[in-house]
């Protein structure tokens, strides 16, 4: 990695913000073109994207794999729901406060997990975070006076604000809120990874000993990375709670946690764009398959419904890991390079580091 301008930290802050704002406005405009169910799906994609973007930054930049991001989403959801119910007022202020509370709750849990994570690697961390998701229903039922067991916490319905009621439908409003919040989270993660902290994360991932020798506090960097990733997941959970008006342990299962991993892997580990593509796939594929199986005879449909989507996800995961470890994002990238081999495209060696996690080259070891 030579050439300062190729390091991730070199993008002007202002440009990132302007671009993010611009495209957010475009996405918000897009919601007007969608029917209610499509807007609901868009809101789901946005909520999932918070979590998958957090997860992909964690995996890509620090090499830590969490199978527990569903639990962190749940923490954010509970923080959001409990705060909403505790506040005596509604509206925007309540939403923002509840969102911050959800993020804070996820940050605290993420910090604790991160402290453990910093000392563990690879499969140990994966196993520990898996146990966290498995314990979630037990936590909800043990402290059921607050968390209400497997029923979860419901929040009162709050419709579209009066000023917008004439022009915006409920699902569209929810999608818009989800898009705005997600844009903020994704921008934040992009800036975090692009800044000095991002360089530290890469340094620790690539060679922890060397990083320590250069004065980088490797442990603290890992803990912070995990916490940041948890906050993103927690905000995703809060957004889901806002959309569904409920949070319950049954929604954040091991299966869902694995689905988040599927999203980041098929999108391309370490890539936020990949996480977005992956989130779209995990939302749309089960729905598409449900549409297809609906026309089958009842017995076959019963067997295939649900199972078929999981089967396809599993196959995708294996195929991507075996054949194209850079995922969808890598495929798009490669196509673009073939089409436009101009000098302003950085040579492969200067690619942002994420892709090296899974297939490290000799010079990295």
């Amino acid at each position: 990695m030579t050439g300062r301008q190729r390091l991730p930290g070199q993008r002007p802050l202002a440009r990132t913000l302007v671009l993010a704002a611009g495209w957010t406005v475009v996405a918000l405009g897009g919601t007007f073109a969608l029917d209610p169910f499509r807007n609901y799906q868009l809101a789901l994609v946005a909520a999932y994207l918070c979590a998958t973007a957090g997860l992909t930054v964690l995996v890509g930049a620090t090499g830590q794999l969490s199978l527990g991001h569903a639990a962190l989403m749940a923490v954010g959801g509970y923080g959001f729901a409990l705060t909403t119910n505790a506040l005596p007022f509604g509206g925007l202020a309540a939403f923002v406060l509840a969102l911050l509370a959800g993020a804070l709750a996820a940050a605290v849990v993420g910090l604790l997990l991160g402290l453990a994570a910093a000392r563990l690697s690879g499969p140990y961390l994966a196993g520990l975070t898996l146990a966290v998701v498995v314990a979630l229903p037990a936590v909800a039922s043990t402290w059921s006076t607050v968390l209400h067991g497997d029923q979860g916490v419901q929040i009162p319905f709050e419709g579209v604000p009066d000023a917008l009621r004439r022009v915006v439908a409920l699902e569209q409003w929810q999608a818009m809120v989800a898009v705005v919040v997600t844009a903020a989270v994704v921008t934040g993660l992009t800036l975090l990874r692009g800044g000095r902290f991002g360089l530290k994360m890469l340094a620790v991932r690539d060679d922890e000993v060397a990083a320590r020798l250069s004065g980088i506090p490797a442990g603290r960097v890992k803990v912070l990375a995990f916490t940041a990733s948890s906050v993103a997941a927690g905000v995703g959970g809060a957004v889901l709670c806002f959309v569904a008006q409920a949070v319950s342990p049954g929604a954040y299962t091991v299966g869902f946690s694995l689905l988040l991993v599927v999203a980041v892997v098929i999108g391309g580990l370490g890539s936020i764009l990949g996480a977005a593509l992956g989130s779209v796939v995990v939302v749309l594929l089960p729905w598409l398959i449900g549409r297809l199986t609906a026309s089958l005879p009842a017995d076959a449909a019963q067997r295939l419904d649900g199972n078929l989507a999981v089967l396809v996800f599993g196959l995708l995961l294996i195929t991507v890991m075996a054949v194209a470890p850079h995922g969808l994002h890598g495929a798009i990238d490669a196509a673009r390079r073939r089409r436009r081999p101009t000098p302003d495209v950085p040579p492969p060696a200067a690619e942002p580091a994420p892709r090296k996690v899974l297939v490290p080259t000799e010079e990295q070891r």
Partner: protein
Amino acid sequence: MDRLVFLLGTGLARGAVLALFALALVLIWRGARVVNFAQGAMAVVSTYVAFEVTSLTGSYWLGLLAALLAGGLLGFAVERGVMRFASPASPLSGVILAIGLVMVLQSALGILFGPDYRPMRVPFDDSAIVVGGVPLLSPYDLFVLVVAVVVMGALAVLFRWTSLGLQMRAAAFAPEVSRLLGVRVSRTVTVGWVLSSVVGSLAALLLVPTSLGLNPHATDSLFVLGFTVAVVGGLDSPVGALVGGVVVGVAMSLVTGYLGAGLVPIAVLVLLVLVLLLRPAGLFAAAEARRA
């Protein structure tokens, strides 16, 4: 006091199966430096084979034999067909491939056999032997304990005193050096997978008759518990798996008996965190294993 004795007995029986399953995880770890997250799903496939063969022939032992064969074949197929793609330099790729495998196997079983639980039988008296008014272990529990100890003993012999075992340990510890010294590393890795899959299948076969029955998700909790056992005992240590199994089995039984069944998953999590943070090497493993 009676209650304590009863809970200890129950925990011991449960711990033996956990130990066996953890042993399967240890085998792969020693053989290939991979934690096989698909161990449970693979074992369920073998158990379905046992179920089908037993239904066809009426013989439990034929079913058992078929399942162990199927387990071996599956281990071979998974290693050659899937795990070969794992990058040796990154522990994550093996985990992710295994997760993909779990999804494929469980959903395929769901499509083929549906979600219903099927009862499995054992040719043993499974009613408990009552000692002084306290129901203790059943003959079936004793059978499980004996199987666990025998398998563990056999594996200890394999690793300590046979050339194959030595080669496997060498290949896992230092593949490059071993290759230079003439060890066929690829073969020893395959053998590790086959052995581990057989042992994992055996654990599931022994467990399922004591639970709700056979279902594609029958081993979901077995994996998490088995992993905990392996971590408590040390992923490198077969003896640790045995001790860890007993520790976790008894701990679960005591928590259920004195605190309530709902707390078990939390207790497992707490145990896992404590061991990982306070004794990161597990009770029996070398310290550097944890950072592999």
